[in-house]
């Protein structure tokens, strides 16, 4: 683990050390994110997890970068087993416009795409792109596909997609370049809920197939 300066009021924690198995990185980030979140001292404005790193945003008037660095360096990541304490099941109709293309890219049938997607244990690794959008990771590489060459100008809310090693659900209609395999009616974002995002870092997600 390395802690690096990231401007005046943030530190960047490189969680995944070089040589760590790529598949273990999201769990390593989540474990550290949880540990930091549970021990956060006053002056920590936000914790921002990403694929291999976490930004710790500070109010330097309350917590100096040096004090924050000391806190981060003495914080032990939580073990991966403790990282998922909430399970969300999402009912999906697997009738996405790119399902056939995804199957062709992977050299399997659309049925197998659906089976792999529903059989996987997905975890929310980090957020981004839009409020409520979660980058979901699994334990395997069996659904890794590139983004579409040309992004769609409008992807409907609830669209379930794949891109790179990630799966994700569009919380609302927006442009997007992910390969769409299905859709869900679940409400992913509600500003009146606490937390407002159904899928937040650490949540485990299972996709359940329902008839189109």
């Amino acid at each position: 683990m390395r802690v690096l300066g990231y401007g005046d009021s943030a530190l960047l924690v490189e969680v995944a050390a070089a040589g760590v198995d790529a598949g273990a990185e999201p769990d390593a980030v989540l474990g550290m994110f949880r540990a930091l979140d549970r021990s956060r001292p006053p002056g920590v404005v936000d914790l921002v997890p990403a694929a291999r790193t976490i930004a710790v945003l500070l109010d330097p008037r309350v917590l100096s970068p040096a004090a924050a660095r000391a806190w981060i360096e003495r914080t032990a990541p939580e073990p991966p087993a403790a990282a998922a304490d909430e399970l969300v099941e999402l009912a999906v109709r697997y009738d996405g416009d790119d399902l056939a293309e995804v199957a062709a890219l992977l050299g399997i049938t659309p049925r197998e795409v659906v089976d792999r997607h529903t059989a996987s244990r997905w975890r929310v690794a980090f957020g981004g792109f839009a409020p409520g959008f979660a980058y979901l990771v699994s334990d395997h590489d069996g659904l890794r596909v590139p983004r579409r060459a040309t992004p769609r100008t409008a992807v409907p809310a609830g669209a379930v997609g794949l891109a790179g090693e990630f799966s994700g659900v569009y919380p609302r209609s927006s442009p997007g370049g992910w390969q769409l395999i299905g859709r869900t009616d679940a409400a992913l974002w509600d500003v009146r809920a606490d937390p407002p995002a159904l899928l937040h870092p650490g949540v485990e997600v299972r996709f359940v197939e329902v008839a189109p």
Partner: protein
Amino acid sequence: MSGDSARALRVLDPGPLALIEDLGRPGHAAVGVSPSGALDRGALGLANRLVGNPESAAGIEFLLGGFAARFETPAWFAVTGAASRLVLDGRPVDARTAVHAAAGEELRVAQPATGMRSYLAVRGGIEGEAVLGSRSRDTLSGLGPPPLTAGDLLAVGAEPGTPVPAVDFVPFLEPGEAVAEVRAQRAPRADWFTPDALDAFFTVEWRVSADGDRVGVRLDPPRTPSHAAGVEPAAPVLLERSVSRELPSEPMVAGAVQVSPDGRPTVLLADHPVTGGYPVIAVVADRSLDAFAQLRPGHAVRFRHA
């Protein structure tokens, strides 16, 4: 008309873009929510202090003047940020000081000579529903109140307990004609760039491009002499990478200078995406970010090591 004595302000003309902003909603980046808030935080804070508000009260951020509003009820107000001539019911009034408006008086803000954004604070603050603890409009995600339009009636909060402070004069530094010096620190991914690229980043004279908004501002590389002759040269790639593989998504912060694959830098501002896949070469110092956000397209910028 509001029809009662509720304190309110009527927007008559929003100008090019008028948004309600406060100090934003940091703390929700893990679920994809940008910090948002005023781009020139110092200017909003000053406007609020001048009318005795807490610095975190919501005000109006308006772009390039042209803003007009009517005080439906008497109110103290102050305008800060980009320097514009202010006219209250036909008489000139000063910026950067508390001014009292009688009921029915109209404030008109001219186009500023320099700078991008001005701030109107009204004693009591602009009210309205807070989303995740803030009334700021986040232009990236669409959270917060929509951009103001002519006819909007904005509720003004109760008078704070603190008095309107007596302030005669507030020093103000306008963005001048000269090259803007912007303090920045090397970022963790600076070593993804060649030594020449890092050197170029901190030495060449960049220009603020027209491709900018509350999410970020792209910078153009320096002009070359052939521009003057009307010939469009092939843009030199100044910020060449030494590591060409794809960067796994990283957290972004306000002031982060992202470099896209064409080698051009973009300085992220308050409505920035919370994570991104372009390497960050440097981060603009907090104390330089307010002034940077006031630079107009075409303004020359040089980054200096913080």
